[in-house]
């Protein structure tokens, strides 16, 4: 498990580099990713609104804005290249740059999931589904899934802003609830709503539910990178329960 000796306090990012421009470059990189994250949250909420409330304009809004996250992702990659080339970062700076590069990829993929949900909303419209397509229980469980996924993702982006270990652990702790909501949606779509939905409609809704679950997964991936930056520990593929217990025990 986690090497106790290495459980250092959170990196003091307030103490700047002797070369101030280095600080600005890292801040710019992080700013791009925070902006990407905010857009993903907005677009996910809009996509889910389009899905559940039949607001097609929200779906089109998401599709229109998709390229912006992609362009920001390219900007983030460019900044990563430049920082590495100019500064040859080491220690915590190296971890920050590597982690932000991975986080940018996760955020961009989360944005793709928002787009996927919007596409499912439009496909359901094209299938000419009636307004009572979604049963109340199914609607509730999809809302729960949306709330959990968006909440996790938003908190993961906040954790990136300060490389907050405690915030990252909160996201890990939310994972069981996310899977519970996701399983609930799958169960309803597979059993209870079998008779009221066509196979095509069921596939659309399953795809949307899966996309929401994946957004939560991306949030957890981002949380892993936050811990990597703050503690220098790669916690991917580690037992979550033991990890949470260990770090909580150390005061995070």
């Amino acid at each position, binding site marked *: 498990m986690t090497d106790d*000796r290495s459980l*250092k306090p959170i990196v003091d990012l307030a103490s700047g580099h002797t070369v101030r421009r*280095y600080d600005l470059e890292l801040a710019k990189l992080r700013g791009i990713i925070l902006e990407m994250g905010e857009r993903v949250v907005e677009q996910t909420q809009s996509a889910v609104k389009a899905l559940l409330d039949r607001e097609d304009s929200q779906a089109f809004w998401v599709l229109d804005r998709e390229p912006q996250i992609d362009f920001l992702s390219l900007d983030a990659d460019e900044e990563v290249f430049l920082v590495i080339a100019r500064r*040859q970062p*080491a*220690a915590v700076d190296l971890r920050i740059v590597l982690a932000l590069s991975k986080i940018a990829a996760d955020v961009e993929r989360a944005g793709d999931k928002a787009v996927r949900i919007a596409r499912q909303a439009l496909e359901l419209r094209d299938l000419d589904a009636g307004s009572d397509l979604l049963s109340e229980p199914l609607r509730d469980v999809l809302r729960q899934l949306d709330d959990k996924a968006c909440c996790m993702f938003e908190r993961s982006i906040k954790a990136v802003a300060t490389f907050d270990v405690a915030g990252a652990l909160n996201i890990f702790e939310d994972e069981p609830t996310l899977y519970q909501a996701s399983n609930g949606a799958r169960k309803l779509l597979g059993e209870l709503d079998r008779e009221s939905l066509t196979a095509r409609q069921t596939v659309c809704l399953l795809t949307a539910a899966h996309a929401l679950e994946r957004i939560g997964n991306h949030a957890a991936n981002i949380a892993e990178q936050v811990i990597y930056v703050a503690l*220098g520990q790669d916690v991917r593929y580690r037992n979550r329960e033991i990890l949470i217990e260990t770090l909580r025990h150390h005061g995070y």
Partner: protein
Amino acid sequence: MEKATGAISAAELANSQHSRETVGDFTAVDPRMTCREVDVWYGSKQAIKGVSLDIGKNEVVSMIGPSGCGKSTFLRCLNRMNDTIDGCRVTGSIQLDGQEIYDKGLDPVPLRARVGMVFQKPNPFPKSIYENVAYGPRIHGLTNNKAELDALVEDSLKKAGLWNEVKDRLDQPGTGLSGGQQQRLCIARTIAVSPEVILMDEPCSALDPIATAIVEELIDELRQNYSIAIVTHSMQQAARVSQRTAYFHLGDLIEVGETNHIFTNPQHKLTEDYITGRFG
């Protein structure tokens, strides 16, 4: 603590600053040199405070830290170069293959053949390339005849990666070579007396990037046969050439560990601040 040279007055002892505890393991698996609780004083000023560090066989140990942190002072203790500085006293234990190098009976001249040194600025003798390399073996009586000496010169220049560049002009002055070639000539000169340890004090700081790369490649090759301790202000160089890195700060050895670890996840804040450029 064994007192190696000189005496310290009661007042100085009272003023002696306690060393900070070093983070990391300062021992080597197979040590060639072992240093324990080394203090160095310049008059009443303490430059090194209780430093313990091993130099292992077939490894490169880099010493980094801001100017005035004591890394060069510590390096110079390893072959008693500080003996030449008035008012400098070294206490503690420094052993080469188990032998205390500050024993009163030990002659520093042969010690400096066993623990050779390469300086910041290339300093070839104002003699021919051949004589620069041959001088050491000759005064130490390491060869019996001209043929052996020729072979030793050739071997040393080959090990220093300089042979192909100078084999046709061995009789020309060493000072006529380029800066990088001069530094490699100095390394060849050091190698020629069969040292066990090579100390390098910022060996590339006066060289251009190409010459630096050649010397770094040479350091990696020399590691197969020698123990190397290098002081450098280039952290990238320390990261590239060494297996272990020691970070000094105001005379203390703050942290020592595997270079890969020091440059990715140092444990001490001072180390991290220095490595990431947040220092000062």
